[in-house]
């Protein structure tokens, strides 16, 4: 059989990265989206998402990529993925009607033997409920990670495929496409695959929640979480790639969606999901770490305080601000002057009159009483603490993700607050009882 033609319907983050990854494996790809302006932008190189390596990979394999705003070209495809991101409401619940409408639109133009694969995040039972011949209908787990989407799409650890009949062989075209990635393929019933995706994310949240809980304890008992992390990673039951970096709660939307789905399923079925409720509570608590520190060390003593904010995206290397801790913080700083900067996200995303956009990270710090690094963008690592000390009015640096070298910040005469260890004070030289922060590789 000649190489199958692959289609992706829905050119949001997931569909775009998956399309480019498929082309990089040697397949001809049709990318479809009903938004003509979006398709035009993509075709002309104006990418609506920011992902390391995406533009370069698309450029290298552009000859096999066709972007379309009508469904017709999908009729030529052997395998068509429904690959649109699924939006969520403020409670993390999925809005599935758009996906159902997309499936309805696409399924009418498919070849008679074409395979339809649901790649988006859907709850258990969704795929089996679709009005499409089960023998040609599959669900596939996506494991997109914002900021590492290209790497994840081109080098997946495994494929998890939900099928009507897990004992049957996968259709040749589908098998041929998946084999090109060189990773294990796990077939299972639809519901298992749909719940596998959610289970993966619950495990990740469990790790994050443990890291956040222990990191907060470290801050209060004089330990340093980053000294502890290597001990955990060398434990085979935990592993090198475990999500152990403390953070400002769970963000990005996808993990929250799965927590909301489990809570909903538990409510419907009478299962105990107390642990998931604890994860959610822990996440809310962690998200407010910066606000608590600012009030305790800056705002309570200075009614006229001014705060510099670096980073608006929910994590580095992405334009996404979904559930961003930075945007969550902003409304609570309305009573104070704020200067902010993000390398990618426009300041207008904040939409608050008290917040002005600076042209650079250093300019955002100028004249401020405290500087908060809310997103660990690589460019913030280049900030020189001595330069910061010169432009800051106050002495407080909040660096939850340890973008800067704590000892260097203290040496520049600034107080340094990070997740997972007690604060380092300039007046004590960061010494005495305060542990020296260790810079370690971040995970996740």
């Amino acid at each position: 059989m000649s190489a199958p033609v692959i289609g992706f319907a829905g050119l949001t983050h997931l569909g775009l990265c998956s399309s480019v990854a498929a082309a990089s494996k040697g397949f001809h790809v049709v990318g479809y989206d009903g938004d003509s302006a979006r398709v035009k932008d993509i075709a002309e190189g104006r990418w609506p998402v920011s992902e390391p390596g995406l533009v370069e990979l698309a450029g290298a394999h552009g000859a096999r990529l066709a972007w379309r705003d009508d469904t017709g070209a999908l009729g030529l495809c052997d395998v068509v993925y429904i690959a649109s991101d699924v939006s969520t409401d403020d409670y993390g619940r999925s809005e599935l009607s758009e996906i159902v409408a997309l499936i309805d639109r696409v399924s009418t133009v498919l070849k008679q033997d074409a395979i339809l694969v649901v790649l988006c995040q859907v709850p258990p039972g969704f795929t089996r409920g679709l009005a499409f011949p089960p023998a040609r209908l599959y669900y596939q787990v996506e494991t997109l990670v914002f900021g590492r989407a290209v790497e994840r799409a081109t080098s997946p650890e495994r494929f998890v495929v939900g099928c009507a009949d897990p004992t049957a062989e996968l259709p040749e075209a589908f098998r041929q496409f998946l084999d090109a990635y060189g990773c294990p393929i796990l077939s299972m019933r639809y519901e298992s695959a749909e719940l596998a995706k959610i289970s993966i994310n619950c495990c990740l949240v469990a790790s994050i929640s443990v890291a956040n809980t222990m990191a907060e304890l470290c801050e209060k008992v004089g330990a340093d979480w980053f000294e502890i992390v290597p001990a955990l990673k060398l434990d085979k039951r935990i592993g090198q790639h475990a999500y152990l970096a403390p953070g400002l709660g769970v963000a990005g939307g996808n993990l929250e969606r799965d927590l909301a789905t489990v809570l909903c399923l538990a409510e419907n079925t009478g299962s105990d999901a107390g642990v998931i409720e604890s994860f959610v509570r822990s996440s809310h608590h962690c998200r407010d770490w910066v606000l608590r520190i600012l009030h305790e060390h800056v705002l309570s003593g200075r009614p006229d305080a001014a705060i510099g904010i670096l980073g608006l995206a929910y994590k580095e290397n992405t334009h996404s601000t979904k559930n961003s801790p930075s945007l969550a913080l902003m409304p609570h700083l309305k009573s104070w002057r704020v200067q902010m900067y993000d390398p990618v996200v426009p300041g207008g995303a904040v939409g608050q009159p008290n917040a002005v956009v600076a042209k650079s990270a250093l300019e955002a710090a100028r004249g401020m009483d405290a500087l908060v690094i809310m997103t660990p963008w690589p460019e913030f690592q280049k900030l020189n603490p001595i330069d910061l000390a010169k432009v800051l009015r106050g002495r407080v640096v909040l660096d939850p993700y340890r973008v800067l070298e704590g000892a260097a910040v203290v040496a520049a005469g600034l107080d340094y607050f990070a997740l997972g260890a007690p604060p380092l004070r300039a007046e004590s030289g960061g010494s005495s009882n305060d542990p020296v922060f260790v810079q370690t590789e971040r995970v996740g």
Partner: protein
Amino acid sequence: MLEHKNAIPAKPVRVVIIGAGGFVGSAIARQLAADGVSVLPLTRKELDLLADDAAAKLKGLLQPGDSIVMVSAIAPAKTVPGLIQNLEMAEAVCAALSETEIAHAVYISSDAVYVDDANPVTERSYLAPSTIHGMMHAARELMLKSATQAPVAMLRPTLIYGAADPHNGYGPNRFRRQAAKGEPILIFGEGEERRDHVFIDDVAKLVSLVLFQRSAGALNIATGVSTSFCDIAHTVMKQFPGAVVKNQPRQGPRPHLLHRHFDITNCLKTFPSFHYTQLEKGLALSKAGV
């Protein structure tokens, strides 16, 4: 979590304080007067909530558009008759409220409504009172909410201290009085239990802020800093030259929950410019009789 019905603070037309003669009620009245608010303070003299005509009398005193602060209680309610009396008092208030279009109601509740092992306590902690006193407040919260269409704020203070507190419970007030009388400050065991103590003026200030913003929902009134009884005793000792701290055997077993902490992030979000009085300063103000 509180939701402000007034996005921009606005002075209430009139505030009726039910229970204005007590430690908390009188502090609220003073604060509101200082904020230029028209106040109708009702003490037991003007309104006995256990009298047969209490509901009718209160209804006669209320005007449409009033804000009310319900602080009156026979506290602590430790017995079943005490519980019933407190509910009867609330019943009278509810009967009056249900026939008057008030603008806003504020109920001074208690952190006793929360489950004992909540730690740290937040407004999201489960309401599962383990005492009659806690159940009394939880029931009164529901009664008031069901009696009016107006926004209702439930404020749940933890341990309050201040110069005028008539109670002499274990903690800052008793320690200060012991020291003032030249008696040793007595702590049980090592006095290691940590609790959050809030200064009376902060309670009054928060009530005023809530009234100006016509807030609805729940807010804990706690500083977010828990201090051991031993540390409080020594802080008081330093404020009274010659005072001493003495340990005495604990009466009964050590508390089930040794420490109680509050996460006050919601307060930081709700009233960003408000900050609590630090314990040392509050104790000094209490000593000065402020």
